[in-house]
């Protein structure tokens, strides 16, 4: 019925990837890598949590060479649990800015995702907008839409706020958001933005690439992005990234893939496929993405999001953010 997937021949050059990044966003790149180097890439996709549990359980016998996932919190956690190996690579250091990779070299960001404010161009004047914290102001009462606090993107955003503002102030902010909600939190960014467009609320916080997808489908949609906190910390950014596993059977091939993914040729597509920002500063974003304008991004090391994630989750629970 099927090949036995576990066993493998050591002879053929290959890399085995456990990926929480979705197949349609990585397969084209893997195909290109194979065409260029002759190294075969095998992968299995799942959520970060189960993949991490599997890596830990397999220990020294894991077939996986690389863990690829979204959100710095997940990457931080993987490094923390000791499943990733530290890598010395001048190429990666040159291609990935320091705040978007692990200080100890156990994982590297591969694309940048900005979580920012989206607003109705009909009902909101940009003068009204300023910062994430500003959305807690009573003037937004009944005008704010949010995605659920269970999504790691919101957990990272709040974690970074805690780093910046302290727990007490952050809790006030989150409580303010909850008080301003027009309707209960949505299960995804797209639905959240559609609610803004339909007039259920006026502003929301979303990842930019979801906005890009919506814009592609409906170029006339009456929504726009706003870059908050430009006078202080900058826009909250997160990464998707990867690291090489501690017990990788093919560490050289895996390093080659990781380095290759940070090069301009691959970066263009890695970010472009999902309308994210390339992590490599030498690479221009997709024209549609570039059209949203430049912004100042938060440059605290993204691993902070991982460190503070559990506290952020508890804070949001206390604030009644579902």
């Amino acid at each position, binding site marked *: 019925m099927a090949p036995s997937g576990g066993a493998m021949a050591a002879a053929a050059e290959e890399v085995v990837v456990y990926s929480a990044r979705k197949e349609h966003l990585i397969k084209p790149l893997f195909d290109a890598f194979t065409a260029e180097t002759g190294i075969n890439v095998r992968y*299995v996709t799942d959520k970060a949590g189960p993949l991490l549990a599997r890596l830990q359980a397999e220990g020294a016998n894991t077939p996986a060479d690389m863990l690829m996932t979204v959100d710095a919190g997940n990457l931080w956690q993987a490094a923390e649990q000791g499943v990733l190996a530290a890598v010395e690579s001048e190429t990666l250091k040159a291609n990935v800015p320091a705040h978007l990779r692990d200080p100890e070299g156990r994982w590297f960001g591969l694309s940048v995702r900005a979580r920012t404010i989206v607003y109705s161009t009909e009902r909101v004047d940009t003068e009204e907008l300023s910062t994430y914290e500003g959305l807690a102001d009573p003037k937004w009462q009944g005008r704010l839409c949010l995605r659920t606090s*269970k999504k790691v993107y919101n957990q990272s955003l709040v974690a970074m706020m805690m780093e910046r503002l302290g727990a007490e102030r952050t809790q006030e902010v989150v409580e303010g958001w909850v008080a301003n909600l027009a309707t209960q939190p949505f299960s995804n960014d797209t639905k959240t933005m559609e609610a803004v467009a339909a007039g259920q609320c006026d502003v929301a916080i979303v990842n930019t690439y979801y906005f890009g997808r919506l814009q592609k489908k409906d170029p006339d949609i009456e929504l726009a992005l706003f870059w908050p906190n430009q006078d202080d910390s900058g826009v909250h950014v997160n990464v998707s990234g990867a690291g090489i596993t501690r017990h990788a059977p093919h560490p050289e091939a895996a390093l080659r893939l990781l380095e290759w993914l940070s090069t301009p040729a691959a970066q263009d597509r890695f970010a472009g496929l999902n309308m994210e920002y390339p992590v490599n500063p030498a690479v221009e974003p997709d024209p549609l993405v570039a059209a949203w304008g430049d912004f100042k991004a938060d440059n605290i090391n993204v691993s902070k999001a991982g460190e503070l994630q559990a506290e952020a989750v508890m804070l949001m629970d206390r604030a009644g953010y579902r």
Partner: protein
Amino acid sequence: MEPIPAGPPGAVLPAGDHHGSLRRFLRRNVWALTSLALAFVVALPLLVIFSGWLHAQNEVWQHLASTVLRDLVVNTLVLMAGVAAGVLVLGVGLAWLTSLCEFPGRRFFDWALMLPLAIPAYVLAFVAIALLDFTGPVQTALREAFGAGGFWFPDIRSTGGVITVMALVLYPYVYMLSRSAFLAQGRSPLDAARSLGLGPWRAFFRVALPMARPAIIAGLSLALMETLADFGTVAVFNYDTFTTAIYKAWFGLFNLQAASQLASLLLLVVALALTGERLMRGRARFHELSGAGRPVRFRLKGGRAWLASAAAGLVFTVAFVAPVSQLLLWAWDIVRDDLDPRYWQLLWNTLSLGASAAVVTVCGALLLVFAKRFGKGPVNAGAVTVATLGYALPGSVLAVGIMLVFTGMDNFLASVGRIFGPDGGAPVLTGTIAALLLAYLVRFLAVAFGPTDSAMEQIRPSLPEAARSLGARPAQIFREVYLPLLRPGILTAMLLVMVDVMKEMPATLLLRPFGWDTLAVRIYEMTSEGEWERAALPAITLVAAGLLPVMVLVWRSARRPS
């Protein structure tokens, strides 16, 4: 994989055995041993989950207890109560209508009402929200007609919304099981009731319903276990249940141990409920009184007949026609971009996995059912309860439990293997089809057990006894008495398992071989980023694939001798 039965069912009877005492012991206790073996297979991953208690996680518990736990428990209870009421009214009511009444369209609804089973709950959830939420076409049209504040519309993302959606996808469990129970009752009990002067309604409540109770309870407990374990549907609604707490502990607080503790509490509650139900049922047995033909249907007249058609039609439309139409519309938009030859591979993987898992799991259920009938005592009853617990656990948690067992064995094999050479350490279990099938057995044994067990409950013990007294050999009794009588139950079980396996996500994702994707995996790829429209193509393919086994069952029940 599965222990093969040591002998056909009749073989348990002490038949003048004069062999060694070990052999005699094995023969005497073959059924207790069989059910213990099966319970052991299921219990291993559960034990892994219970082992979470070895590490205290006070901080997480204190946090949950002081913030969200109370709401989560209340939400869970409300959801269970609502879904129970919904599936009972829809499932039993419709089964009664189609199996014992005659009304316009009855022949069509007979089988059509099973179709919603093919729609995954999370898919119906998303379609419902897409259609009925503030941004959906219905409310948008109303706004255009009456202005923003000019109309009232219920909030779909609410307790009522999530209950409705789950009741609509889960009622087929109750419908199918109680329908076959009603049909199997034959005409005589109802004839007797009516000859004693009971009207159709009282005959239903006093005779048909109590007789169908094992089947109804089996269907209801499947629906409720699925409700408890559900994560996808409630996540789409952002409705927080106990499962939410489990995932919060795991993915939000990065605490798999605390998640395991929460999950094992859930299991404990389910085990208590199952045991309680069995105790309450006590020694009552509901056997088919005679095989005398199909019941004469009550011919509904006039307004009542049309009311019956309308009710069946409404449920069918809301639970099947509407979501399928929406999926088709979405799929149409993307079919040119996304439909590639790999779809045939996905379809084949999905169907062959479903079919193999159905065979394996139903064999397991048959062993368990015979063990329950012939094996006596609390050990057996306990083993049956344990063996059917897997279904009540949130999929990802169970999947991790199973994976830990497999990797544990793999790591052991690897340490042995390395003695023989450097390549001996490759995993042989994790990531193989065998591992997947075993995982499905653990997860879906309860699904296969329900219908098989309620079919067995309706076989009078006197029937095989009579066969034996006429000199039939055990194998012959199995082949010619049990098998034909169990067949409807077995077929229902296979269908339910096959469809459930095809929809299953967490275990498939975690344990599948490299590159061995299924339609559910493709749906996951699209939906986890909120791209529901792009998930429509694999979803509609999955529904179509799910219709295949349903059709088999329909044909089979149409050819059923009267």
